[in-house]
Each structure stands twice: as structure tokens, then as C-alpha cells.
């Protein structure tokens, strides 16, 4: 019974945060709503006894990613209010709403037509897992570490390389190439 209450509270925090991200005209407020969503997801992870991923969720998403967003917003001074009353492409919002409702309907149909819990449908779509890694009684950190450093060690090294490339790429992209880059272009003028 307790887990039902926890689920309902964290689900409403998640969805409220998501709605806040979408409907807040101010990007700073949107970033703060994003924190609510990330924390709600972390609570759901704790509820499923996946404690390490909950920790990483809070540290990486709630910490690093949101701080990065806020840093960029403040650095550029783009915390201006987006105007919702003008619609640049006519009928775009209705089309977006319809498209996402269709997406939701397709996912839910696949979920509920496939049997209880969606497990049968998942297996029907993806096929049986080639090599299952069964959960054991050890803590989830130990299990995850064993899996990462034995079966996925090459992928783990590749993500290290990916992060290095991303860091170098960010420095190259943002590096100031000279004073003329700081000139604010008018929209529509040519850009190198």
C-alpha cells in the first residue's frame, strides 16, 4: 500500500515537472521544473530498489545536466519570456498535439494488447534476450559493476572515449575565434 502512495506522489511530481517544462515561458523556470521530474524518476528507481541508478540520476541529471542548462541560460542572458500568443507555423500546435496523442495511443495500444505487464509484448517485438543476465541477491552496485566490467567492458571504454571527444568538441565549438565573432548579426544576414 505504501508503494502505491509513493508511486502516485512521484508520478504526479514527474508529470507536473514535465508540464512545467513545456508550458513555462521562462527557460529558467523550465529548468527548475526539470529538476522535479528528475527527482521523481529517482524516487521511482528507489521504489524499485535500484539504488545506484537513483543516486546517479540525482547526481548526473539533477546535478550536472540542470546546472549546465542554468549556466548556459545565465551565461548567454537568454532568460527572455517566450511569447506563446504568436504561432509561427499555422496549425503547428494542433498538429503537434495530434501527433503526440497518436504516439501515446500507439504505445498504450502496444502495451495493453500485448498482455499483462507488457512483458509478453516486449518479447514479441524484440525477441527473446540472447543472453539473459539474471538478478542475484547481491546489491545492485555489485551486480552492475560485475556486468559493466566483464560483459560490457569494451562499451564502457568506448563511452570514456565518447566523453573525451564530447569535451574536446565542446571546447572547439565554443572557443572564441576573434573579436568579430562577438558582433551580433541581424537575423537573415549571411553567417560564415
Amino acid at each position, binding site marked *: 500500500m505504501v508503494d502505491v502512495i509513493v508511486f502516485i506522489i512521484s508520478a504526479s511530481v514527474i508529470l507536473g515537472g514535465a508540464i512545467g517544462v513545456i508550458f513555462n515561458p521562462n527557460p529558467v523556470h523550465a529548468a527548475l521544473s526539470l529538476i522535479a521530474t528528475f527527482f521523481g524518476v529517482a524516487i521511482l*528507481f528507489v521504489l524499485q530498489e535500484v539504488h545506484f541508478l537513483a543516486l546517479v540520476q540525482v547526481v548526473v541529471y539533477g546535478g550536472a545536466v540542470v546546472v549546465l542548462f542554468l549556466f548556459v541560460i545565465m551565461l548567454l542572458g537568454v532568460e527572455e519570456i517566450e511569447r506563446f500568443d504568436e504561432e509561427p507555423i499555422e496549425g503547428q500546435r494542433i498538429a503537434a498535439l495530434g501527433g503526440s496523442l497518436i504516439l*501515446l495511443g500507439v504505445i498504450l495500444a502496444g502495451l495493453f494488447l500485448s498482455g499483462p505487464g507488457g512483458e509478453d509484448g516486449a518479447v514479441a517485438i524484440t525477441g527473446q534476450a540472447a543472453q539473459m543476465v539474471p538478478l542475484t541477491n547481491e546489491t545492485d552496485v555489485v551486480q552492475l559493476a560485475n556486468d559493466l566490467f566483464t560483459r560490457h567492458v569494451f562499451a564502457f571504454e568506448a563511452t570514456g572515449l565518447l566523453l573525451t571527444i564530447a569535451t574536446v568538441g565542446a571546447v572547439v565549438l*565554443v572557443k572564441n575565434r576573434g573579436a568579430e565573432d562577438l558582433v551580433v548579426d541581424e537575423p537573415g544576414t549571411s553567417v560564415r
Partner: protein
Amino acid sequence: MEVTTTWYLVLSAVLFSLGAFGLLVRRNPLVMFMCVELMLNAVNISFVAFSRSLQDLAGQTAVFFVLVVAAAEVVVGLSIVVSLLRRNPSATVDDFAEMKG
């Protein structure tokens, strides 16, 4: 009453659709990035729910890699946004059409 896998999957589907809707509707590139993060989190919820219900660790490993790749994606994406917005701080994604050609 008990929280089943279906609850998590329905929540994940709703969160994914909300993120997709925000990505299509908003014009501020930073907020569009946040909506992509919402969609990634929705997928993480269903990964963990399947990992628990199928008793398979692979779902949790997948969440770990999604986290790492999302962090790298945010770094590169935000640096592109920074270099674009430095020219014109009030730019929306519509103005980025000037990148072509």
C-alpha cells in the same frame, strides 16, 4: 492494490509523449533540449521496470549507458546552442534555418 510493471510503463508512455509534444511546440532551443531529456528519462523508467519484472540486469546496464550518452549529448548540443545564440541572443530555432548553404 500493488504497483505493477504496467503502471511504470503507462507513466513512461505519458512522459515520452509529453516530451515529444514539448519538442514540437517550443521554439527556444534550450527548452527543446530539456524536452529531449524528458523523453530519455521516460525510456529509463521503462528500462528499469522491465529489468525488475523480467529479473534481467541488462535493463539497468542500458540505463547506465543512456545516462553517459545523454551527458555527452547535452555537452555537445549546448555548445552548439551557445555558439549560435552568441550571434543573436533572441534567436529561436526558426532562425537557425540560416545555417543551410
